[in-house]
């Protein structure tokens, strides 16, 4: 009996503490207070260049939304910070919820940092729109009720490129040599690649783990030459991809190179004539969709350069969040989750609308394989990629390229 009452006391204490942390500051916010949103993205390190685009994208969406009257008549106020590393990302996320009074968390590109922010969201029972990290595990075995994922996961990228390789007869009985980024995202991508090879008759003859801060790939290139594969395949991320592409061109190895992950900023940084092969993307600024063209034109007017895919994704993510808040007339976690879980469709500046699948919270959307434009075909230094047809095709459901329930261990 004594124990029971002590526990009750603790619960009551926690409730008071919780109320003072969440409830009391809220009293200070009137109806016309700004809606605060916490945004975390890597601005330094091997994904820093991508994070810089992400910031430009979310700022542009913020400006447009505020100019047109805000959300529920209130202005948006976005706090955007460098997430630095997984530990710092979690600390900052917690601080944003506790001290800055943000309504929701958004952002991330690094899968490892995304994972720690997801845990913060889960612990605090607050919404996190995980925008740019692509590891399967985040929407698979690590999924939680409070997190929604926007970018395409590893498996979709592997499917996008893999199908193009099968079509080009570069899969069956071919020997593959892969280089893999040595962190959660790379491992995930390598696993997805391996199952695609197994299912489609490709042979994996070597896989090297590469630390994320590697700048010199020459020892790996020598090993590739010794192994004599038919196709070299990159499971790398961020700066690694650019370094590999540049040095692969430097050594001039004869084997075709493809990759299951590339962001356009990394491709632009590769230098003239260095990039080749087939790669996946989630969006590219030369897309023919009218709404996408308007976005690109406005972005160029504002920033003097075209948007990279991380600028696009941050932009559409904030628009989706604003739409959800407007429709539910709330910034409450449960109402927003309910709205997204309803599989509401969103205009994401693509040919087909996207929606969050209710059981794993993954945005269902088109993806594209791309190849590299030949010499003299690019209109400017940004126009270097030739976008392939969207997958899935118009007659297939968007979910057909995503992980199936059998493949995805997510349960909330």
């Amino acid at each position, binding site marked *: 009996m004594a124990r029971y009452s002590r526990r009750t006391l603790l619960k009551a204490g926690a409730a008071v503490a919780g109320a003072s942390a969440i409830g009391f500051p809220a009293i200070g916010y009137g109806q016309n207070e700004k809606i605060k949103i916490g945004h975390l993205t890597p*601005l*330094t*390190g091997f994904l*820093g*260049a991508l*994070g*810089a*685009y992400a910031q430009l994208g979310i700022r542009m969406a913020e400006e447009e939304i505020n100019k047109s009257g805000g959300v529920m008549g209130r202005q948006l106020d976005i706090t955007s910070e460098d997430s630095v590393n997984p530990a710092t990302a979690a600390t900052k996320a917690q601080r944003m919820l506790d001290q800055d009074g943000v309504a929701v968390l958004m952002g991330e590109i690094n899968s490892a940092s995304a994972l720690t922010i997801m845990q913060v969201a889960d612990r605090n029972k607050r919404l996190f729109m995980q925008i740019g990290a692509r590891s399967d595990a985040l929407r698979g075995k690590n999924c939680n009720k409070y997190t929604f994922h926007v970018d395409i996961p590893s498996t979709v990228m592997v499917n996008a490129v893999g199908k193009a390789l099968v079509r080009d007869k570069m899969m069956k009985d071919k020997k593959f040599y892969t280089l893999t980024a*040595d962190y959660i995202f790379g491992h995930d991508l390598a696993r997805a690649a391996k199952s695609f090879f197994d299912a489609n008759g490709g042979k994996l003859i070597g896989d*090297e*783990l*590469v*630390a994320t*801060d*590697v*700048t*010199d790939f*020459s*020892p*790996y290139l*020598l*090993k590739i*030459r*010794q192994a004599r594969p038919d196709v070299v395949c990159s499971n790398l991320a961020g*700066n690694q991809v*650019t*370094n590999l592409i*540049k*040095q692969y*061109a*430097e*050594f*001039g*190895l004869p084997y075709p190179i493809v990759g299951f992950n590339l962001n356009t*900023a*990394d491709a*632009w*940084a*590769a*230098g*003239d*004539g*260095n990039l080749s092969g087939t790669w996946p993307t989630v969006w590219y600024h030369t897309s023919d969709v009218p709404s996408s063209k308007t976005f690109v034109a406005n972005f160029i007017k504002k920033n003097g*350069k075209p948007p*990279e895919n991380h600028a696009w994704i941050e932009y559409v993510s904030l628009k989706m969040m604003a739409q959800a808040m407007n429709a539910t007339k709330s910034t409450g976690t449960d109402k927003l989750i309910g709205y997204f879980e309803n599989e509401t469709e969103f205009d994401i500046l693509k040919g087909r609308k996207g929606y969050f699948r209710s059981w794993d919270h993954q945005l269902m959307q088109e993806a594209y394989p791309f190849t590299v434009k030949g010499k003299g075909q690019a209109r400017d*230094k940004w126009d270097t990629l030739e976008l392939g047809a969207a997958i899935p095709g118009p007659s297939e459901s968007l979910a057909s390229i995503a992980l199936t329930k059998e493949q995805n261990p997510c349960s909330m």
Partner: protein
Amino acid sequence: MEFGFLLEQVVNGLVLGGYYLLIALGLSLIFSVGGVVNLAHGAFYALGAYLSVEITQYLGFGPAMVLSPLAVAMLGMLFERFILRRFYTADPILSLLVTFGLAMVAEQAIRIVWGAAPLSASIPPVFRGSVIVGDFLFSRYRLLILVVVAAVLLGVWLLLHKTSFGRVVRAGIQRPDMVAALGIRLQPYMTAIVMLGVGMAAMGGAFFAPITIVHPAMGAEIITVAFVVVVIGGLGSFWGVVIAALLVGVVRGITIHFVPAAGEASIYILMFLILLVRPRGLLGERIEKFE
């Protein structure tokens, strides 16, 4: 065949070591003469890369490789004259703080001027591709870097050991008080050493820009390896730094051959082992003023 593959990694490691050398040698010289650990050294490396990419667009590859290090050396002169000079006799922690701060300022300055997105740079077509000598594969471009490093190394060695300039510098490392007693001001020599040191770092950046990603944080990435090389080689020793740079390149190559995932860790393990046996580094001299 396995032995041949390993030998190929060793040779490739030596080439890579030559590139580390460009950055580490200046760091070691500045420390030996001025007693300042220049944490901003990487920033000059990054500046060298950025300037070379800019200059290449207007004047082409060759002039960029010469002009970019020269421009950075001029910047190094200002750096020595207005900042570093105040810290030679001060508490070492102060020079650490000021150069560390400067490194961050430089990285942000690059971000402001050139943006956070990496710049694009390529190897000139003549140096593309590889040369196969016997059973070994060499990148044509890296062979060019090797030739340049060898020439620079020879030049620096001659400067330090065969000229009166070098005699004063070497004397200044060991006995600055005695040099002063002889009526020689060390300050102009220090200015020259800093210019030489940061100029070499910039040259490393310029030559590596076409084969590595050119982004604001590139300086911070290289400085750690340069430190490891200086520590392994031992302070005040020209050949110590040379041997250490080559050793680091080779050990990394061999480790990647056998245990790829440990490639980056291997150089720190190497440093740890060498410091256990020789706390002063491979060929480190006993320098009185640092004891």
